[in-house]
């Protein structure tokens, strides 16, 4: 490795194509499988998706084979019409707004509660590993099972949450059938299943902060808040920056919770961009072109988000 780098330095001034090849061919060969698979499995469908999004393809005019009969495609190129329709529609703005609220609230609660429990767990005490095990449990259950569990717990008629409310003398709430409570329900479910990952990641980050820093700060008379603000927060930043980015992407694209808990209902009130695009493509008359355009709009939003985020990190001295 060192030899490689030293050779690289010496060769740098006169680096031609051949030099580059002889120096880097093994790195390229090693990355080739992933690059090829990504280009074929992601790049090609992506290109096709971009093309479809510029047409008026639906289930009705898509080419298909029924028995021996081959029906050719009859969809046409319509330019940017799909995008214009999406970006000017009230549905898009409404769904975007809710998706942003959903993502921000969920990620804030994930990180807040995750950091809180991580701080509690990051100190010597009895039963620490027991608490840890219990708190991790929601992450261990597959997300689709969790969505079903919550659908049962929040069932209006015989869900246990309502049963408890009634036993305590309150009226039951139709959790999944009221637009506002349905939103609360999907957020509650997603927060429940997302906190453990944040907790474990942040706990790992906390344990990597050298203890001497806290001892030195204490000797210098720093208050607990000052220690948190000036040692814990900066010490966590490498881990927290990553998990916030990951968490944002995961939540933004969180399909199973919404799809299985409320199916986007009632009346589309919990529909995020991803589930909306999916239902366009696979429910009713399948609108392939519209769905592809939605997908690309969503991807564009995410790429902008990640780029802004990465450049912010790079200013703080991240590696790439």
């Amino acid at each position, binding site marked *: 490795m060192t030899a490689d780098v030293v050779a690289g330095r010496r060769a740098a001034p006169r680096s031609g194509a051949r030099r580059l090849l002889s120096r880097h061919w093994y790195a390229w060969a090693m990355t080739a499988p992933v690059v090829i698979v990504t280009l074929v499995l992601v790049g090609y469908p992506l290109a096709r998706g971009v093309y479809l999004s510029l047409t008026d393809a639906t289930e009705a005019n898509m080419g298909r084979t029924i028995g021996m009969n081959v029906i050719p495609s009859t969809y046409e190129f319509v330019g940017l019409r799909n995008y214009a329709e999406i970006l000017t529609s009230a549905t898009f703005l409404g769904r975007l707004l809710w998706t942003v609220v959903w993502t921000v609230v969920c990620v804030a609660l994930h990180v807040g509660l995750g950091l809180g429990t991580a701080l509690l767990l990051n100190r010597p005490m009895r039963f620490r590993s027991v608490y840890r095990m219990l708190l991790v449990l929601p992450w261990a259950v*597959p997300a*689709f099972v969790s969505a079903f569990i919550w659908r049962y717990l929040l069932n209006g008629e015989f869900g246990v949450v309502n049963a408890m409310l009634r036993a305590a003398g309150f009226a039951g709430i139709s959790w999944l059938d009221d637009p506002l409570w349905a939103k609360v329900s999907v957020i509650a479910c997603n927060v429940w299943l997302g906190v453990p990952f944040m907790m474990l990641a942040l706990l790992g980050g906390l344990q990597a902060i050298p203890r001497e820093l806290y001892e030195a700060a204490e000797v210098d008379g720093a208050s607990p808040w000052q220690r948190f603000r000036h040692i814990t927060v900066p010490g966590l930043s490498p881990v927290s920056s990553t998990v916030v980015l990951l968490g944002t992407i995961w939540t933004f694209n969180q399909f199973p919770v919404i799809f299985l808990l409320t199916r986007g209902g009632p009346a589309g009130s919990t529909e995020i961009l991803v589930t909306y695009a999916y239902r366009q493509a696979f429910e009713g008359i399948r609108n392939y072109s519209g769905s592809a355009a939605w997908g690309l709009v969503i991807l564009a939003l995410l790429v902008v988000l990640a780029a802004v985020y990465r450049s912010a990190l790079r200013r703080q001295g991240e590696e790439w």
Partner: protein
Amino acid sequence: MTTGDQVTTGDEVTGERATTGGRVTTAGAPHGEAPGKAPRGARGGREYRSPARSAALHLTLIAASVVSVFPVAWLVLTSLKPRTVIETASVRPFEQPTLANYAQVLGETRFLTWAGNSIIVSLATAVIGVLLSATTGYAVSRFRFPGFRSVMWMLLITQMFPVAILIVPIYNLMAGLGLINQFPSLVIAYLTSTVPFCAWMMKGYFDTVPVSIDEAGRVDGLTPFGTFWRLIVPLAKPGLAVAAFYSFLTAWAEVAYATAFMTGDDKYTLAVGLSQFVGQHKAEWGLLTASSVLIAIPAAAVFLLVQRHLVTGLTAGATKA
């Protein structure tokens, strides 16, 4: 560190990587082996809590644990109740306990077929994903080469592809190949996300393997491939296993592709099959809860065993720490 000197100052980058990698391993190790013990020994003398604060700490943690465990516990309890009790708003934990729901799930539904389907698809995804991505994880961990940043970006961006963007083109493609309602179509769809993800995770794992091992191999005359295959892979087996397990879980719990691609009920995966129990018109909560328990218990057991490594893999891939 700016973009331009990325390649030329490669030695700095690698040096830093080696030390931080070492720090992570040492910081993680005592905790990994004996949670609670090492910090108590090291910090016990320094921190003293009054009984009141200690009680508050434990009460908070107990409350959090109850919130975290209750839904799962209630699921298990519900699965043991007969149907007539489930459909009343009862808050009693035990009522006429019975295994009838389990018997019905295993005997009268296609649960076992769906479980088999899920296992086939998930195993294929995991094995192929890891085989394809291992060398890439190593390369981006060790080498700074022209295209490095593009590869990293590609790995990051493909991970954030919303399901909505690829599903239609892949569906049309698979329909053209006659693969709809066939397992390969699902495996291919899952590979689009697991391959970049595995590469990303394995980079994190390889980062924690000291670079001095590579150097020793190179001094002894191994090629980069030889170093990777003979020295690094044996050391990185836990990392490979975790990446495989994570891909397995991703495929196991995936809903959107499986719902769209698998049209016959002999080809459903568990995620699709379970939603048949609670359709628009009827809701077989007994079947749903019993099958959920059957799925969740083995998944949770394995998961709890490896979760420590999962977190390290997920976060280390993207950061220096």
